[in-house]
């Protein structure tokens, strides 16, 4: 593949996904298993990435953490994209009052700093994994909505759309079979960036204690312990953070690669 | 009459993604004092590049491969950048096709003209301002006091072109190079600008290198004509000779095309 960036990104994400899907098979031990003899132990043969203060194997926790982070990222962005698609295409296609209302709503939502919005909702709900996905999705659709609206506005007047109207296609059909497939390029690019963003948000939330709750491992909540073990247990700080970094790099590579393809 | 500018075998190449494109192939021409030379040809024949190369104003991917441009005994291609910068604007000035986009949108007309004056002459801001007002009235702008405070987007194309000409005349250049200065203007404005240029040439005594694809303009103002085609000068000579007895097939094509539309 000539598009090296895209290839690199896909490779990284493929490896991570494999890790996530086959976690039970790959993981050295059970992530909640506490090895009392090896509390806060540095990396060794028995524990490749070390252990945390409760003796749990870091490598296992991180592999299971991949499951959590990736699935939250993808599903949250999926929710955001669906909401964005619906609102954006309605606004772009119908125009007029509907457009104004939807765009005003988008503007209002954009006035709230994302993190504040997410934390506020997190304050009213319990932190289940589904809730986290929902919250991130419900607060992150604005970019997609604007993007799709823009694409549809420019595609709307093209000949093939007017032709499909002429032969009597229903609005629904026009939107879903003609407009959206042609607008999908930038949406996909944005979606991959969005997944990276969602993973970042989830790890931030978990780090603050409002995301994935222990003992379920998430890269973010493993890092909670690094605050208290700074300087003593470097492995707890380095590895989860590195994992987040690499994952986000992977998705950004994909996004850059897609940009080159659809540009 | 002695030549003011002598171009010998100029060759300019463009590097487009590792493909070399030769835009100007061994072009030679001469401009004498107070002479009007028209560089005519179709779009893409290399006229503009030739003109810009004379003072080495070229985009980063372009390169002057060989040739000489003699001006007052110096080869402009070879001299130091510091000396070249003193000749640009002062001895050789340029007018471009679309005046509004060739003027900086964030500075007033007055500022841009005064900048040219203060760059090459030892004048105070106060003196430069007076000079600017004078120049603006020389190019027949009705209300110089107001125009000096205007921004390019506030004026029409024709006004901007006049102001541009004023800016070029700021230091009484020896050669004025006009690259299709009337192409983007309305026909009525076009003849007014041409009249203006001719009149100013009488007054200030500069040579004019006028680039155009429009042979009817060429006929009106040229002393000498150079016809360019695909980067080469295919025919050159006195205007009268070229129009009455064209030799090169491309020249004949151009002339007959204009005659057919009834413009010659």
């Amino acid at each position, binding site marked *: 593949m000539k598009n090296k960036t895209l290839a690199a990104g896909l490779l990284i994400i493929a490896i991570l996904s494999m890790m996530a899907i086959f976690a039970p098979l790959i993981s050295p031990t059970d992530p909640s298993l506490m090895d009392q003899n090896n509390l806060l132990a540095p990396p060794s043969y028995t524990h490749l990435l070390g252990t945390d203060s409760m003796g749990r194997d870091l490598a296992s926790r991180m592999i299971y953490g991949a499951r959590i982070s990736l699935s939250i990222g993808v599903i949250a962005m999926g929710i955001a994209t669906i909401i964005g698609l619906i609102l954006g295409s309605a606004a772009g296609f119908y125009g007029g009052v509907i457009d104004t209302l939807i765009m005003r709503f988008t503007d209002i939502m954009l006035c709230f*700093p994302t993190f504040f919005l997410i934390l506020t909702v997190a304050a*009213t*709900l319990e932190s289940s994994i589904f809730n986290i996905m929902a919250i991130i999705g419900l607060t992150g659709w604005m970019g997609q909505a604007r993007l799709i609206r823009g694409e549809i506005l420019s595609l709307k007047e093209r000949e093939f759309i007017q032709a499909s109207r002429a032969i009597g296609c229903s609005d629904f059909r026009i939107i879903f079979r003609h407009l959206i497939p042609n607008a999908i390029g930038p949406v996909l690019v944005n979606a991959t960036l969005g997944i990276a963003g969602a993973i970042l948000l989830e790890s931030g939330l978990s780090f603050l204690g409002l995301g994935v709750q222990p003992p379920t491992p998430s890269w973010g909540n493993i890092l909670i312990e690094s605050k208290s073990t700074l300087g003593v247990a470097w492995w707890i700080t380095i590895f989860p*953070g590195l994992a987040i970094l690499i994952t986000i790099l992977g998705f950004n590579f994909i996004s850059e690669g897609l940009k080159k393809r659809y540009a | 009459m002695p030549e003011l500018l002598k171009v010998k075998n100029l060759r300019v190449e463009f590097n487009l993604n590792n493909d070399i494109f030769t835009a100007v192939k061994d072009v030679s021409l001469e401009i004498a004092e107070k002479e009007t030379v028209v560089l005519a040809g179709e779009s893409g024949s290399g006229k503009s590049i030739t003109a810009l190369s004379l003072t080495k104003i070229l985009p980063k991917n372009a390169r002057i491969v060989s040739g000489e441009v003699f001006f007052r005994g110096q080869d402009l291609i070879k001299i130091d950048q510091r000396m070249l910068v003193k000749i640009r604007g002062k001895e050789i000035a340029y007018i471009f096709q679309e005046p509004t*986009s060739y003027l900086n949108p964030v500075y007033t007309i007055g500022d841009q003209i005064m900048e040219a004056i203060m760059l090459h002459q030892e004048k105070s801001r106060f003196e430069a301002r007076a000079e600017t007002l004078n120049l603006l009235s020389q190019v027949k702008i009705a209300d110089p006091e107001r125009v000096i405070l205007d921004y390019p987007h506030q004026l029409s194309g024709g006004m901007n072109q006049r102001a541009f000409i004023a800016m070029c005349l700021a230091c009484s250049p020896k050669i004025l190079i006009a690259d299709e200065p009337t192409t983007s203007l309305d026909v009525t404005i076009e003849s007014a600008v041409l009249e203006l240029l001719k009149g100013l040439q009488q007054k200030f005594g500069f040579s004019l290198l006028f680039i155009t694809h429009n042979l009817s303009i060429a006929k009106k103002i040229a002393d000498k004509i150079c016809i360019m085609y695909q980067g080469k000068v295919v025919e050159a000579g006195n205007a009268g000779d070229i129009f009455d007895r064209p030799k090169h097939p491309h020249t004949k094509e151009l002339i007959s095309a204009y005659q057919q539309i009834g413009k010659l």
Partner: protein
Amino acid sequence: MLTYIFRRLLAMIPLVLGISLMSFAIIHLAPGRPSNVDQSLNPKISLETRMRLEKLYGLDKPIHLQYLNWLKMMARFEFGKSFSDNRPVSEKIMERIPITLTINIISMIFILIIAIPIGIKSALNPGSLFDKSMAIAVFIGFCLPGFWIALLLMNLFCIQLGWLPLSGIKSLDFEYLSFWQKAIDLSRHLVLPIFVSSIAGLAGISRYMRSSMIEALSQPFICTARAKGLPESTVVYKHALRNAILPIVTILGLSIPGLLGGSVIFESVFAIPGLGRLFYEAVMSRDYPLIMAEVVLTAGLTMLGNLIADISYAYADPRIRFRKQ
């Protein structure tokens, strides 16, 4: 110009109303009533207190009346009393504003000082080693989790090297220091938070400046500037830069929500007593009056930031400031 400002202000009104509605909706429509404080989180609130609070905040009234009440409170900048210590919310917020404001403003200045020259230099030599390495640095910068970098830097500078203090904004003996020593103490405490806060902005603005400069340098009037005989430095810094830098003000304004959101994280990591940390504490203790107030405040600041950015741009760009005759 004045008509432009006026129109923008007018357009802001529905936005303000919308913000008040949204913040109200988020809290009140979410499952779990605002007064339904989890006993385990805040044992101070007994059933009796809860019912008193409900009455106080009119939570027993129908929802549209509650909203009007909320609007009235907002208009008077009264946000009630904090659940955790009964102090007026506005007081608690006002205490914290100076610190967060200081950090964010210094952050923005820092970003401008560093990112603009980097962008310009990259634009002047596109494809050079400098440009390419900056591009890589920016890419990685966008991908770094802020809190992770904060932790790493803390480890390096505070623990391993011992150059900087670990947390807070003042040392324990702050009160006893001279003025100059106080200034240095504050700076040492704020270095890391400001740096962490600026990373995303640095990456974004240097990239933006680069493309803005490249675009400006390709404009026709640059050719004119060169043809006039201006030295290259004047062409770049007087003619190109002035055009390229116009949108930067807008970008800065648009980065306000990002900066505010980011402050929640780094203030928690560095134990800075600012608005972000206050918000975090409010969320953890389900202190709804405080939460609502901060949400509205930050949304308002964002809106204000956008407004100032738009107006500054309109003022700076003569094409908008002076309409055609």
